[in-house]
């Protein structure tokens, strides 16, 4: 998933999809890329579960799915909290050693 997000064009596609579902063709025009290139990016995003596909008649619309991102942020926030606490414990240890 982080690999999917590492690419600047894919991040732009996501930003664009934030405003609402788009057709692959519209995205291709918007980013000045060929359709195959856009399709490839969309497939990467789809595999990372950041985007889902919806067929409407003969067209395919792409939707942003924000849930995985929120999940990742929660996951990383838990680690950040964990380390904040450890660094606090380190402070305590150093202070204890001082008073020995």
């Amino acid at each position, binding site marked *: *998933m*982080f690999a999917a*997000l*590492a690419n600047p064009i894919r*991040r732009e596609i996501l930003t664009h999809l934030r405003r609402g579902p788009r057709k692959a063709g519209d995205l291709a025009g918007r980013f000045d890329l060929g359709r195959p290139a856009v399709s490839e990016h969309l497939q990467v995003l789809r595999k990372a579960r950041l985007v889902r596909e919806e067929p409407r008649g003969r067209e395919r619309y792409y939707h942003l799915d924000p849930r*995985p991102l929120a*999940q*990742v942020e*929660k*996951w*990383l926030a*838990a*680690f*950040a*909290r*964990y*380390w*904040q*606490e*450890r*660094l*606090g*414990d*380190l*402070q*305590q*240890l*150093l202070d204890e*050693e*001082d008073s020995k």
Partner: protein
Amino acid sequence: MKDLGTIRVEHHYSQSPARVWRALTEPSLVARWWAPGDIRAEVGHRFEMDMGPWGKQPCEVLTVEPERLFRYRFAEPTLNTIITWELALEGTGTRLILTHEGFDLDSPLGQRAFTGMKPGWPGILAKIATVLDE
């Protein structure tokens, strides 16, 4: 979104970089603020950190610059991340910067975080914190 998958935490200590360095690299001291393990500031040294309910996590030292930089691979089979400690003199004390990078949802722990499978990370972290607080 540039630093995705990276955590950075900083702290100022009134003690010198030499003192903080010891607390980061000597097992008897590391065990008192983080976890027990045969950690050593020597490039290539392989060691394990005992993360309590999460199990022993294999690590490997990547970079050592005494009193400045200590970097190791952390928890390769489950999380496969890299931890970097940077120390800098700040006044008469130390500015410590921790960078924990390489978080990947495709890692076993990442998958669990993603699917919400039990036990998820926050639960495990709470348990670790409890064990360490005892």
